[in-house]
């Protein structure tokens, strides 16, 4: 009995020792959904934040949102990066994560997503455009911020899953191949065979028809040119002018792994960290 009491006491002391430390970790991380404008109700904000917390901790990649008028669209890239870096966002050694900034100025709303660490790998440039489309779609359908942001957060989770599986969402992300329909496949095979037969028969019979034709107009008189009579008595080649046309060169889109992808473009923030990102006005 004494041993049991002793064990429970030790366990209690250990719990008391580490519990504050755990709490500090949680307390140090900034809120993952901040709404300074008030486009969400408090209950909506809390629900979205719980979703962000759950995904961020499970994936160890931060998913965060700030809705504020403190950002300017002209400097949004630097401001979003700085907000991310200097307010403690990002998980792990690489400060992995993303921050969605929803800003507002005299011209209306704008959005920008900044990515960092593993977040850069998870969200390619094409992926960022896709995530913004998710928000815009709901915004255009009646300024539905709550559902737009919820869809955005869930899509972030899916994009992180794809990156974890080694196939980040990108411009050449392959669509699943549809199951071949046997009837269509057979029709295609028969169609190709019939077409090949028809073309070959047409070519073959045209050649045979050509054998029946031997009368052709003669437009020149080379058979009657006096041998050796042709002389070039004067010649001049005069350069006149040049014209140069340009055409855009297709970009080399290869990335590591050998597959053809758009990838992520990155820049360095004022803190010296690398960030990806992209945004637009709504």
């Amino acid at each position, binding site marked *: 009995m004494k041993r049991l009491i002793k064990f429970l006491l030790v366990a209690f002391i250990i719990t008391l020792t580490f519990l504050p430390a755990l709490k500090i970790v949680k307390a140090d991380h900034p809120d993952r959904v901040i709404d300074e404008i008030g486009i969400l109700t408090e209950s909506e904000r809390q629900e979205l934040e719980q979703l962000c917390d759950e995904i961020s901790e499970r994936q160890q990649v931060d998913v965060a949102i700030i809705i504020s008028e403190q950002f300017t669209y002209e400097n949004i890239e630097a401001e979003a990066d700085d907000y991310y870096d200097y307010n403690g966002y990002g998980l792990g050694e690489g400060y992995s994560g993303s921050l969605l900034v929803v800003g507002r100025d005299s011209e209306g709303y704008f959005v920008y997503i900044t990515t960092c660490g593993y977040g850069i790998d998870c969200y390619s440039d094409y992926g960022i455009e896709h995530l913004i489309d998710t928000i815009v779609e709901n915004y255009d359908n009646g300024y539905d911020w709550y559902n737009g942001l919820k869809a955005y957060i869930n899509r972030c989770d899916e994009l992180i899953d794809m990156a974890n599986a080694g196939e980040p969402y990108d411009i050449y992300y392959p669509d699943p191949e549809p199951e071949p329909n046997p009837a269509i496949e057979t029709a295609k095979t028969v169609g190709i065979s019939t077409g090949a037969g028809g073309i070959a028969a047409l070519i073959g019979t045209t050649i045979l028809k050509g054998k029946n034709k031997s009368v*052709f107009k003669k437009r020149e008189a080379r058979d009657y040119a006096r041998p050796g*009579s042709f002389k070039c008595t004067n010649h001049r080649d005069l350069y006149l002018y040049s014209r140069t046309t340009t055409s855009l060169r297709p970009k080399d889109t290869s990335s590591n792994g050998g597959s053809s992808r758009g990838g992520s473009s990155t820049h360095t923030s004022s803190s010296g960290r690398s960030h990806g990102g992209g945004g637009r006005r709504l």
Partner: protein
Amino acid sequence: MSNLKQYKCPSCGGPINYDIASGQLKCPYCGSKFEIDTLQGYDEDLKNTVEEELNWMDKPEQFFTETEESQLRHYVCDSCGGEIIADVNTGATSCPYCGNPVIVPQKFSGILKPDLVVPFKIDEKQAKEAYKKHLKGKPLLPKFFKDENRINELKGIYVPFWLYDAEVDMAARYRTTRSRTWSDSDYNYTETSYYSVYREGEIGFDNVPVDGSTNIDDVLMESIEPFDIDEAVDFKTAYLAGYLADKYDISAEESKEQANQRMRTSAEMALASTIRGYDSIALESMNMGLNNHTIKYCLLPVYILNTTYKGQKYTFAMNGQTGKLVGDLPVDKGAYAMYFSIIFVIVAVIAYVIQMFIIGG
């Protein structure tokens, strides 16, 4: 009095002014700039030095003597209007062009005497063999044409031709281009350089033949060329023994345009053959002048076979000197359908098998 000389822009054809800033001549319409030497050279090219001169001297008329006329007969076909000359011993019983048996003897007068004749070198037996050979290897040919009776209708006839000799001076102007391409990290570039190319030359033609009879198709006669006129001999009525001769009904004057056109094409081809090192060549202008020109009237040996199949007339012609035989043949619809079906089925089955068992794995 103005000393200003206006040039024509080689790029757009607009008038060009002097650009003081660049010291060059600048086109106000397309913005192209040129050195003065370039425009002077181009201006010279535009003034073609060979004057277009295509007049042929009239051919001196030569008529049959009374003795020669007494050895010949002149017939006119009631059906097609064909005019036939034959020697008295050969005579003519039917029209060699349409087969009509009613041909009427005419008074022999006012008919020009040919200067030359190329005698037949291929006899009738060889001509028939060549005809049979011509029909071989033509699976779509109706059987009707292989009928032996039809082959017997082959007739040897001297066809009247005008032969044109001339020495030709010619000058041509071409627009040519040369292109090069290169790239940097963002763009592909293609630079096309334009040149004015001028060529002058001379060439001689001997005995360019033009058919002088309306009874026989010009294109058919062109198809049995060439004739070796070096083998031609002075005309004698004796050469007509056993053969018919057609009387010309298109004059040398009327036929000369065709000779000019053929000479022009060959002259231009000869000049163009001297232009090398360009990616494209386009003829802009050409002039041609004729010197030392003569016209001769010559009879050339031709075998002709006319036949009618399903209401359509088909004519075969053979060069009686070289044996070259031509004649467009109709297509047997039944044979066409059969060959089409055979090829269709074979290729379709092969394509199906390849798709199912080779590509499909």
